[in-house]
């Protein structure tokens, strides 16, 4: 797969002296969903703002679709749609006018059918004649998404798109994002909801203190950094752990029918084989076994701690 966005040696020091990004290198592949994770102030918005032309980089360069974002900004920006983190829409204009404005601003000819499709997909069609200041917060956020899609971008940046959107709507928006990806749009989203990244992303990038700590396939990330929990269901309740098992960091459930064991999938030896052998040696009958991958949230917190 080719890179549609290429970021090389990108750094940003704001006039206030804050170093918001340091030497970020990143290739975003055409057609993928990339989730950027990072704590508050990590530099996610700064990164997006530079690519979209809102912030000038201190050093480094970026190209979108092969077009340099400074020298060839028209071609680069025509490919990009941006949904900013902060909700801001012209309060007195109707939804339809707002969305058509965005399309025209990007130099695209009028296409009411496309705008209708976008508004319907975002459940805004019934609100098209309403003024923006008559909309709820979640609706305004969807108007921002509609604006970003009005000119049919090939790369879509979503800066915390689902903050303040209710759960059912959030799932609908994920569906919209997946459909976009299926239609070939490359999507970069930032989020604090790990569930979102876990559900949506093909790859995940982790930023902290302006440094891109890693970019990895989601599945691989989970595998490499994931902790797993083994749950062993017993046939007969266990009153206490036998001595041979006591030192292995096991936890027994209150009723004594379940034993859990946490292990690191990265470790050379996970200890599972030994554990099961010990169970057999003690004559403990096992009814069932299950393992669960730790969530991305746990992965992410560990990663940030390890790099602190």
């Amino acid at each position, binding site marked *: 797969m080719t890179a549609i966005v290429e970021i090389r040696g990108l750094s940003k020091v704001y006039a206030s002296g804050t170093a918001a990004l340091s030497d970020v290198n990143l290739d975003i592949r055409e057609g993928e969903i990339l989730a950027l994770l990072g704590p508050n102030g990590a530099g996610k918005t700064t990164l997006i703002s530079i690519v979209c032309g809102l912030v000038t980089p201190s050093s480094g360069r970026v190209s979108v679709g092969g077009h340099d974002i400074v020298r060839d900004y028209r071609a680069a920006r025509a490919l990009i749609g941006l949904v900013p983190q902060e909700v*801001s*829409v012209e309060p007195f204009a109707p939804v339809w006018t707002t969305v058509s404005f*965005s399309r*025209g*601003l*990007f*130099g695209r000819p009028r296409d009411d059918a496309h705008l209708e499709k976008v508004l319907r997909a975002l459940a805004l069609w019934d609100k098209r004649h309403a003024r923006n200041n008559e909309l709820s917060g979640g609706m305004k956020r969807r108007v921002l998404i509609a604006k970003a899609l009005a000119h049919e971008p090939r790369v879509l940046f979503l800066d915390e798109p689902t903050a303040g959107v209710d759960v059912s709507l959030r799932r609908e928006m994920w569906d919209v994002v997946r459909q976009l990806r299926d239609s070939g749009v490359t999507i970069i989203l930032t989020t604090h909801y790990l569930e979102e990244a876990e559900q949506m992303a093909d790859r995940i990038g982790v930023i902290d203190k302006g440094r891109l700590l890693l970019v990895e396939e989601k599945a691989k990330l989970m595998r490499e950094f994931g902790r797993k929990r083994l749950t062993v269901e017993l046939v007969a309740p266990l009153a206490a752990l036998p001595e041979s098992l006591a030192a292995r960091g096991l936890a027994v459930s209150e009723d004594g029918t379940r034993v859990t064991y946490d292990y690191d999938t990265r470790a050379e030896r996970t200890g599972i084989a030994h554990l099961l052998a010990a169970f057999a040696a003690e004559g403990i009958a096992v009814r069932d076994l299950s393992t669960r991958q730790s969530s991305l949230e746990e992965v992410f917190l560990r990663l940030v701690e390890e790099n602190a």
Partner: protein
Amino acid sequence: MNWRGVVTIYRFEMARFYRTLWESLASPVISTVLYFVVFGAAIGGRIEEVEGVSYGAFIVPGLIMLTVLQQSVSNASFGIFFPKFIGTMYEILSAPVSFYEVVIGYVGAAAMKSVIIAGVTLATSFLFVDVTIRHPVWMLAFLVLTSVSFSLLGFLIGIWAKDFQQLQIIPLMVITPLVFLGGAFYSASMLPPFWEGVAKLNPVLYLVSGFRWSFFGLADVPVGVSLLAVGVFLGLGMLAVWYIFRTGWRLRN
């Protein structure tokens, strides 16, 4: 050139004007009527004519200029300040439009509003006095050039302003005094020689003088000088725009 982007900005701004058409037109019309009542009736009773033109008619070009300058500055500065203030500026900055195109869209709309308001002001003044326009094409040319120049100035103020106070301070402290001292209601030749010299340092005088010449053929300064003054003014504005474009001043971090 992304002309479609320019037209889109222009239309969006004009839509704002049409949404509040009555408020937009009522205030200049009301102030025109007031000026006629106050200046025309009160002063006109004492000064019957200025250089062969009845005082009531004499103040019409000045009155229109006064309105055009104020409206241009306030419409254009608000037009660009508003998206900065509410945060929708991000879209303009991320769009494939150059800063020049943004300027053309916003300044074009603000200048158009001023021209419309000037037309309405002129029509209002016909209710009070008889005015014949000697050089209608020049009249229009001065009107458009002035509207554009001062809309450009307003645009720059809107970019510069960080809050509503700053937005209003320049129009209040600089533009309004210059306009009042710019010979809107009198001819500079009516002043004592020293003050006539001072008045000629005021750029607005050249605009009013040229505009008045297009109505009556009378001027405080040669009409060519007036044109030159508008040209210089416009040029300075464009220079500032160029600077902002190069540096992203007050727009990009």
